[in-house]
């Protein structure tokens, strides 16, 4: 695998020789990431032919134009949290965007313009310094803001501030052919404050069902909306691994509420959102309570195995709520009173909880999902109504029984679910943790679980949010408005040569066909 010398020299002339490498030692490390690597469906494992580190939009543009000239595929690389940064074709140029980490904040107009290597904890730090805030995706404070808003964007904090589509403002986009397209106000006014215009607004195409993951060019800048926060400082405390933000309790409070069963918890969720109180609200799987209590993996397993009998009888579930006094301390007092009434009426019990935050506001403990078993994948991420999210979670829990060998038994828990936009949108994420190190068949089983979970959603009429972009389009496309045809048309209009992270978004289908004989292709 190598590119012609001429191509390498041209790349060097764009970014400088020190920022281009075709050394096998460098290329080795751009082949695979973490998430997805344990299931064969997760991604291919090819090394790129070279890695380039551009420092500006102009350099990204020149690289993409060069790739077009030589018909060479390219893959953008952000923080590499998704395995789709690993090439799926031979002779790819990996474009590592690490050098592009500038951030500009317009606090008066409440938005931030980020280059692709600005990550959430950094944005949140800068925003909070100015009395503003943003969500941090549950999947990681360490991911690129640009990549996340253009491809995912889910967080418990969406409860108040809504879905990701609404916070993308102006965007700078290097299209698959190397032309630069600016969206929203960035196109005409050179300012990024508004997404709808003046100028083109292609944000629907840009996000697609769940983002193109490099399949439609490279976003080199995106402005995101910031929201007014409360004025007190959240004080970082502790030494690793026990670091946390202390909440200023006059302005922010956290509640841990237990419910005897799921229906009463869901009722509370609805009531809380009807009352339009709270900043974040999430149902947490019981397993996470055991994790929080344990001092090591070994300790966790001791507790968790011992909990089986009790948990199979006990249907208790946990609801976490955060209240923020955006406007005043009085707002906190008022919302707390309303919450207390709702908890009483819905049969919940308010438990004492630490007034700290480890995982919603500036950090996200997603790495912990690998902690219990060493391997993990989300087989479902539904973004739909709360009813659908619940149903899909329950269905997944039932389906999981078939795939338990080598996987962690969570004793029937239906996963995480939360609501955004004050309950107008529901979200469910169903995880499966497993040990892929001892027996390859475990991974194969999880491949099947993954595909079966998509089929299940289709059959049951639940919208399989993530799998629309991270799953076999051959299943989801015909089920949801033939969107596979639309995706193909858009892809071929913008990228007729399939150079931008090929074969995105069709690699799951290709993979099942070529490399997963253990997954029966019956669609």
């Amino acid at each position, binding site marked *: 695998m190598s590119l012609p010398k001429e191509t390498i020299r041209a790349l060097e002339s764009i970014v400088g020789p020190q920022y281009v490498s075709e050394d096998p030692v460098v290329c080795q490390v751009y082949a695979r990431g*973490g998430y997805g690597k344990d299931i064969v469906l997760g991604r291919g494992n090819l090394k790129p032919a070279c890695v380039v580190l551009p420092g500006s939009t102009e350099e990204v543009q020149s690289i993409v134009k060069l790739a077009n000239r030589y018909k060479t595929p390219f893959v953008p690389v952000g923080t*590499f949290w998704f395995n789709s940064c690993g090439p799926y074709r031979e002779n790819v140029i990996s474009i590592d965007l690490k050098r592009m980490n500038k951030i500009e904040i317009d606090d008066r107009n409440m938005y931030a313009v980020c280059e692709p290597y*600005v990550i959430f904890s950094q944005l949140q730090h800068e925003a909070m310094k100015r009395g503003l805030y943003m969500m941090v995706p549950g999947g990681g404070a*360490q991911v690129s803001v640009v990549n996340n808003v253009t491809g995912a964007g889910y967080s418990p904090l969406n409860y108040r501030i809504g879905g990701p589509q609404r916070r993308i403002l102006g965007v700078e986009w290097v299209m698959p052919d190397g032309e630069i397209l600016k969206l929203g106000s960035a196109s005409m006014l050179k300012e990024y404050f508004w997404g709808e215009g003046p100028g083109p607004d292609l944000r629907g195409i840009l996000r697609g069902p769940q983002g193109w993951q490099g399949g439609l060019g490279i976003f080199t800048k995106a402005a995101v909306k910031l929201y007014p926060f409360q004025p007190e400082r959240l004080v970082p405390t502790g030494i*690793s*691994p026990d670091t946390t933000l202390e909440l200023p309790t006059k302005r922010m409070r956290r509640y841990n509420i237990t419910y005897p069963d799921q229906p009463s918890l869901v009722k509370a969720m609805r009531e809380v959102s009807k009352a339009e109180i709270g900043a974040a609200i999430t149902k947490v799987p019981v397993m996470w309570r055991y994790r929080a209590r344990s001092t090591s993996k070994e300790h966790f397993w001791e507790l968790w195995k011992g909990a089986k009998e009790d948990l199979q009888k006990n249907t208790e579930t946990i609801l976490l709520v955060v209240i923020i006094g955006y406007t005043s301390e009085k707002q906190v007092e008022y919302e707390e009173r309303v919450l207390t009434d709702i908890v009483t009426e819905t049969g919940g019990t308010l438990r004492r909880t630490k007034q700290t935050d480890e995982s919603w506001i500036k950090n996200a403990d997603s790495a912990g999902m690998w902690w219990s078993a060493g391997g993990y994948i989300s087989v479902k991420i539904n973004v739909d109504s709360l009813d659908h999210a619940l149903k899909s979670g329950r269905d997944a829990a039932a389906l999981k029984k078939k795939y338990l060998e080598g996987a962690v038994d969570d004793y029937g828990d239906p996963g995480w679910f939360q609501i955004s936009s004050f309950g107008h949108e529901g979200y469910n994420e169903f995880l499966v943790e497993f040990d892929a190190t001892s027996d390859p068949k475990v991974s194969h089983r999880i491949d099947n679980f993954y595909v079966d979970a998509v089929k299940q959603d289709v059959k049951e009429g639940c919208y399989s949010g993530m799998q629309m972009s991270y799953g076999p389009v051959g299943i989801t496309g015909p089920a949801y408005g033939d969107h596979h045809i639309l995706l193909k048309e858009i892809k071929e209009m913008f990228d007729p040569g399939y150079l931008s992270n090929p074969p995105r978004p069709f690699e799951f289908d290709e993979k099942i066909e070529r490399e997963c004989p253990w997954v029966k292709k019956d669609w």
Partner: protein
Amino acid sequence: MALVLENHRYDADRCIRCGGCKWVDHIYMGHPRWGVKCPSIARYLFDPYAAYGRLQLALGLMDGELEITPSFVDAVFQCQLCGACDVGCKRNLDLEIQDTLMALRQRVVDKGKGPLPGHKKAAGNIESTWNIFGSRKKERFSWMPSGIQPAAKADVLYWAGCYPAYTQSETAQATVKLLKAAGVDFAVLGESEWCCGQMLFTTGQTELALKVAQHNIDAIKASGAKTVLTSCPECLTALKVEYPKLLGKSTSDMPYQVVHLTEFMEPLVKNGAIKLNKPLPMRVTYHDPCHLSRMSEPWVQWEGTRGQYGVLQPPKQWRRGTNGVYQQPRNIMGAIPGLELVEMQRTRENAFCCGAGGGVREGLNDFALWTAQERLTEAKETAGTNTLVLACPHCKANFTDAIKKSGDNMKVYDIAELMVKALSQGKEA
């Protein structure tokens, strides 16, 4: 027992590329300019220069996909073994990153592809003179201030270490003045104190490391001292962690207890045995030396097996950097009237290394100086001061060289020097 790479396959293979090893803990995260705590990826940018990248190199090597080429060797040694990655990873996952990186180096050396010429030269110095500089053996304690006479035998043994003994003698002198001021009797080993060998451990030169360790352990034993006190965190780590690790023991099995000057002095400052009463009207920032802070926890030998889900049997006592020496130097400075301590953006377990460790100063000096300059810039830009205090002569030597090279106006003090300046009138020897 040298580290064996294959024993760390699980650690390498289970890396999830979350970047916890390179980013500052998100709870403490600041502006992107100071977002990365790994000097290696901060400078070299390509992913083999982060811990997660090196783990992939380790897998590639074990699986026969990669050969040990010059660029492989470069990626493996352009790293201070500063432990920021180890602690960062253990915030979430308890993978043994530091040991995996060391095992990888060991493999490179065992295959005859390392260490680097600078490491070999330093090892040669050690072997011929028992100090890292190749300076004269008998001058090891010639810095001793007149008027201070170590005891022939005492419970406390002052372990000077090569840097304080030969180039950063102001630290050694300040240390013994403090001991005198506190009324602590101490002995020294004289010519029997050999280089601690930390550079040998980190560069995979295990045979010589073992020889040095064995000699030093015997010499300490023969001195009859109960406590070894050192002002050098590199020596601290060698005596406290690397010696037992190499011998397959735990720190608690060693025939001595070893403490750093700041651990020793803090209670004495607190209980008034030593009085830091003289005002020092200075605005300073404190640099946490890696081997005093996140890397200084005792070694607990573990032997066992890994079962399903990666569960260890028996459970292991983890070194996560939580119980390092962070607060003691801060408390000492807090006791000095007039002294204002302002923290940098990256601090405590998230501190950015000075650049000297892991054989980088000896083998890849340019990278050592670049790293030091980054830290000096951070001190100025995020703490707003041009005075840096630290508690490590190795760091001080490196910062001093960086300042010499760049012409920077930063001043660097070892905490021992500051303490001596703050001693009540008449107490200073």
